[in-house]
């Protein structure tokens, strides 16, 4: 489509003014086509593309979980977990799928469900804690999301037994 640039609106005959609204609608449709090319991917917001939840496994362990939507992936080396106020020991990240990156070299990515055991620095039976997770991922459609920050608030059990229910991350504070 040609984009012409006229400094001032052209003069119009009165009868043509009747078409002005219609023509403007056409221009609007053209603008829509121009601004949103048909090839532009339909994309999920990051909190839906990378759904974070967590559950207490026992008084000393939280399991964090990302449900990564089809067509999206997370970078393994961008995952960070912390627990407030107790503190977390190093989380054992499961192995990812290898992916070669021209700038960063060989990296690993996660697709589908990623479950990560986050051991607490010390057991905290019955306490309510906040798990924070930093992550960064992309869509196969050709976009990447900036590092995002999710939080899940959950209460640890008094004693070991059945794992607690999964708690979804709060929406707020997603962006760093």
């Amino acid at each position, binding site marked *: 489509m040609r984009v012409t640039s006229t400094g001032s609106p052209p003069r119009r005959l009165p009868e043509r003014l009747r078409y002005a609204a219609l023509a403007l609608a056409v*221009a609007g449709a053209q603008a829509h086509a121009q601004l949103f090319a048909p090839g532009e991917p339909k994309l999920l917001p990051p909190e839906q593309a990378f759904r974070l939840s967590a559950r207490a496994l026992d008084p000393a362990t939280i399991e964090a979980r990302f449900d990564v939507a089809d067509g999206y992936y997370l970078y393994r080396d961008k995952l960070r977990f912390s627990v407030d106020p107790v503190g977390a020991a190093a989380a054992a990240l499961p192995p990812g799928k290898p992916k070669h990156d021209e700038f960063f070299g060989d990296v690993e990515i996660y697709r589908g469900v990623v479950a990560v055991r986050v051991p607490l620095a010390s057991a905290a039976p019955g306490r309510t804690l906040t798990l924070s997770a930093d992550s960064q991922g992309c869509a196969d459609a050709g976009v990447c999301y900036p590092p995002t920050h999710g939080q899940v608030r959950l209460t640890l059990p008094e004693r070991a037994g059945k794992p607690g229910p999964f708690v979804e991350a709060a929406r707020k504070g997603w962006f760093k």
Partner: protein
Amino acid sequence: MVQVNRRTFVIGGAAIAAAAVGAGVALWRPGRNAARDGAAVLAMVLPDADGREQALAQWRGKVLVVNFWATWCAPCREEMPQFVAAQARDGAKGVQFVGIAVDDVDKVRVFARELGLNYPTLIGGYGAIELSRTLGNDLAALPFTIVLDRQGRVVHTQLGPLKAARLDSLLADLAGAG
């Protein structure tokens, strides 16, 4: 963002033939639903890789391609060589690419050197993502590219890579029209 409601589309569809004869593309001008005012883009002032503040307004009057990118964004890095080529090819015609990096200056410097970047890239940090949201990047994802014509109007926004053919035809239209 430009919103065109269903009714407008119906009217628009019925009017296409008439408009093609009568109104034509001359109606493409700043207006409610046509090209948007790019004043918010041109109002941006960000530091370059040497820490000097750069106002985008200095490129007013050029065909300006503003590309939000980051080194951590592989699709961004993959499309940038074509921007370098287009800048070399069309720079003399008044086309100016400007990168806005959602990134640290050190990583930007390394990548710019590796790529042989021939246009300025300003350092926005993560704050630039919020900036891009105000310019229509609702999902706050990268790459995000805004094309302004010589009159400072937004004629194209693109989330995700800008295909080479699309970029070339945009630049041919805009740089030729000046």
